């Protein structure tokens, strides 16, 4: 506003001698408006205020960050459902593994829990790659595999593999 006022100035009246009178007669005066000039002369004199390159880059960076945050927040909101689903599925599998170990339910079964279908597979652990079965005599070792999937969907959300002792 101050800048705008600088562009507007009254036409000087020779009859007025002091500033007070000048101010009081301002509304009655005629005005001339000096618009910013882009002439070569104006530029050279530095009368136009503009942005430096640093300011421009800073502004662009701020805009980019803000935009990025907005996009990723949007993305996060859109994907919010997947995170608890994987975590829930893992927790459910962990719980079933603990129950299997405690109750010694070492057999295959399908369990529905917490909105997931859990496929439980139990088999003797027979590792032959390093000839461990011979060395370890691990006949009491059981391989428990648990997979979680959503009903009516083929996709497996998560899998848990663990070895348990039969005599525990």
């Amino acid at each position, binding site marked *: 506003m101050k800048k705008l006022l600088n562009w507007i100035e009254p036409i000087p009246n020779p009859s007025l001698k002091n500033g007070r009178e000048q101010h009081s007669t301002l509304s009655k005066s005629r005005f001339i408006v000096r618009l910013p000039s882009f002439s070569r002369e104006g530029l050279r004199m530095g009368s136009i205020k503009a942005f430096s390159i640093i300011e421009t880059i800073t502004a662009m960076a701020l805009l980019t960050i803000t935009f*990025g*945050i907005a996009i*990723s*927040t949007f*993305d*996060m909101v859109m*994907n919010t459902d997947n*995170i608890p689903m*994987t*975590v829930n599925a*893992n927790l459910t599998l*962990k719980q079933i593994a603990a129950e299997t170990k405690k109750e010694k339910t070492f057999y295959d079964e399908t369990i529905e829990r917490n909105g997931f279908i859990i496929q439980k597979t139990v088999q003797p*652990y027979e*590792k032959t*790659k*390093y000839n*461990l079965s011979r*060395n*370890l*005599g*691990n*006949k*009491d*070792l059981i*391989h428990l*595999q648990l997979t979680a999937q959503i009903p009516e969907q083929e996709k497996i959300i*998560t899998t*848990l*593999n*663990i*070895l*348990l*002792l039969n005599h525990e």
Partner: protein
Amino acid sequence: MLSDLEQIQLQENLWEQRVLNNLKSGTAIVQTSNTTIEKQTIDLFNTEMDSVTIEKYWWGLFQVGTVDAFKTFPNQRIAYRKAILYGSELKTEQKAALYLKDNNQPLAIAGKTVIKGDVFLPRAGAKRAYVNGQGFSGTELFEGKKQQSKRYIPKLNETPFLPIIEYLVKGFPKNNAQLNDTLRQSFHENSMIIHDNIIYLDKHYIKGKVILMADSLVYISPNCYLENVVIIAPYILIDKGFKGQIQAFASKFIRIGEEVNLIYPSIAMILKTELTPTIPQNMIIEKNATIHGLAGVYQFNKTDLPPIPSLNIKENATVIGQVYSNEKIYLQGQVFGNVTCAGFRVQTAASIYDNHIFNTTIDYSKRPNDYLSPAFLEKTVINEEIIKLD
């Protein structure tokens, strides 16, 4: 971007859970193994994403299992590891208060002797007797079921003893570490071996996978802190008031001083590879000393029994665990657990009584329920967790 960070964090947590599960699986493999396992890295479920490094080795008369589970990413590594000391469940003969070899003589019981628990006795059984004019003061000679013992005591599992015997007979390795005031060695690393002619321990702090070997003597003062340490020497002297957890193996003599407290699971054992007629007694457990674990004497040369008892457990000395000897023992203190021996002897100022026990207590019921044995007997399964190690 925040969502990406959250996803990365979630993935990390899931991998961490997976690595922890693999650590449990590796521990299960090590635990079920009844043999040692050379250090090796395996892919548990053929997924190329579940790697564990496992190892199981003898540590004195126990076994140590180590498991390292890990997942390596380009700029990160998730790793967990565990080391466990394994012992064995007691065999039938060890679940009795007494196993006395059948040497065609009855066990003579005199004075205020108490035997609580099942007993394996010679065909001749047990009888009341007098020592220094004191007859058996109890009502029952023993409180438990009687079974007949064999002409030999339960056989030794020689496997863990072989390297110790080799050290004692052939000498010790020369490449060894320096005996600093403080020594700590993880069970995931190689053994730290300290060797010298005489090892004098005073104000030392030694913990972990450390073996102390001396050509002649190891002396342990009460100002030391020793934990999980194996000691091998011809002579071992543990001074009055020491407290710690050790496995001590000597070929000639061990003295466990007064008020010494060897914490579970400790071992003090004489391994005789030659006759030592100049040493009247190979192990003396002094008054008020306590051993939580095994105290034993074993003569590897099959000779006739020496007349003098090799192991002397003095008055008010206590062994909570097991006493094992294929020679005679002089039992004046008390044993809360099992005594397996070839014979007893009582010596008074006036006379000597063979196959007698006098004023002593053998009480199997006072053995701690969670006590696990070192694997010193044949055909023992070593897969019971005793303690977690560093």
